[in-house]
């Protein structure tokens, strides 16, 4: 029995794989911010959500297990959860406001800089948040299909299909702009 165990690959201990939160935060801050910026299309909101994400991550850093996924995936999942909580609250607030008055609307706000060419930014803004999200995870953050699917809470196939749709749409919008 001992012989068999000796041959079995030993899993590294969780603590041995983990580095300090500060290092992880410094490494993945840009990625998480980019992801949330593309998801929300709102720079100040993305900043707030990024900060909240890292606060939440710090509180549960002890529970992070590197054997179950990369730091980036884990942080993106927290970021998504934080963003969805915010959207839910915002949606409720909007419904409440619409009941009593016309929404003031943020239509006058200047377009947000996502950090791409103006044509690509315009095309990105025409996508839905869900489509931008998958583009952010798979392409901007370069997560593999499994990790992105885990963040989105869907299957790998569904994730690939969503990305294909988003890219097709993006390509169509870019082409339409070029023709125009």
């Amino acid at each position, binding site marked *: 029995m001992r012989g068999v165990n000796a041959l079995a690959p030993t899993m590294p201990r969780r603590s041995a794989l983990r580095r*300090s*939160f*500060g*290092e992880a*935060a*410094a490494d993945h*801050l*840009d990625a998480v*911010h*980019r992801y949330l*910026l*593309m*998801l*929300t*299309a709102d*720079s100040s909101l993305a*900043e707030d959500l*990024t900060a909240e994400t*890292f*606060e939440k991550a*710090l509180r549960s*850093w*002890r*529970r992070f297990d590197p054997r179950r996924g990369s730091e980036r995936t884990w942080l993106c999942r927290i970021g998504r959860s934080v*963003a*969805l909580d*915010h*959207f*839910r609250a*915002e*949606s409720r607030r909007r419904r409440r406001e619409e009941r009593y008055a016309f929404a003031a609307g943020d239509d006058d706000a200047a377009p947000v*800089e*996502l*950090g*791409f*060419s103006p044509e*690509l930014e315009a095309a990105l*803004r*025409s*996508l*839905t*948040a*869900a489509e931008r*999200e998958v*583009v952010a995870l*798979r*392409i*901007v953050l370069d997560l593999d*299909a499994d990790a992105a699917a885990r963040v989105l*809470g869907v299957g790998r*196939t569904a994730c*690939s299909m969503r*990305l*294909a*749709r988003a*890219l*097709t749409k*993006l*390509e169509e919008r*870019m082409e339409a702009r070029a023709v125009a």
Partner: protein
Amino acid sequence: MPSPDLIAPDRVEELLGGAVPEGEREALVQGLVRELRLGGAPAPASLRTRVTALGDEPLRRRASLPRRRLALALALVLVVVSMVGAGLALRGAPSGGDDSALDAPASEAPAAPSPAPEPAYPEIADNLSNFTSDSGGERSALGKGQSEPDLVSGDENIDPRRATDVDLLVELRLRDADDLAAAAGQAMAITRELGGWVAGSDVDSRGREGEAQLQLRVPVGRVEDAVVRLSELGTVTGQRMETVDLQAGIDARDRRLEELDRAIRIGQLRLESETLDPEERLRIQIRLEQQRAARADLLRANTRDRREAATSELTLLLHTREAPAGDERDEGGAAGTARDALRLLGDVGVVALFLAIVLGPVVLLVVLLWLALRSRSRRIETRLLDGPEPAGPPSK
């Protein structure tokens, strides 16, 4: 249903992996991918400072096990404890049968096993001098279903000065009908010898098998002797004792008698005073008659209770049935242990089945609820992200 213009997901994956684009469209997609990978706004300096400051804060250390594991372990312990508890309760519960009392002491007091099998009568004999009696006049029953500590550790020992009605039942197994008939005769003789009498008997000893039921009245002071001697006539297979405290009722009636005596004396004095008018005199005489009648009733009730308490009713059941194999008291060794283990496993199985039946629907309900909540959460999430602006109106 994907649109006909949709680039195949597999092809998209290949393009992401660096495959050579085929056609203008794929080249455009790959160009987009390249631009998206290279671009993207970095986090502003203010945010970086804010997040970096978080990393400098000392973490509050919590000495706690992972919550999920702890909850799982707790649930497991609870299930095991409830199963074992229920199994023990099932084993300790009275079966209602009349032939399984012999193993009661062995199963109820495993911590103090007796070195050799002994007849069961000492328990009843001990109980007679040590049983718990209730003072409220309620009936207390001691028998196979009672645990041993309850039988012997009563705080209130029997007080010979208190009137108590004691009913006993002793069940004996005899070898055959002849032995049964002889034992019935001996039991009657013992009863008469002890100053008691046979209040009723029903002996059936035709053929090899037989049954008998004797209703014996034995003076309270000789009950212990009677139980000891009667138990020697065969193998004890069951025993039961019930006691009713009659003293409380007698005391209450005595107090009422004293009050009545006082009232009667006062009435008599008033009658002798010759200051009463005829109508008043008549009223007092009527009241006196009523009080005397009540006094007589109370005296009769007290006499009846004292007579009841003077003797104990002992029911002796005799039979020739074989005890079930599981009730063999002196069984030991591997076979006995295996049988005990099987019985325990059976009890645990029954409890597990019971828990499965009871908890099954609850678990199913919880799972369905969880699935429903998850599905609802997904729907809300899809609705929230189904527009260019999250949480805004959905895209057209």
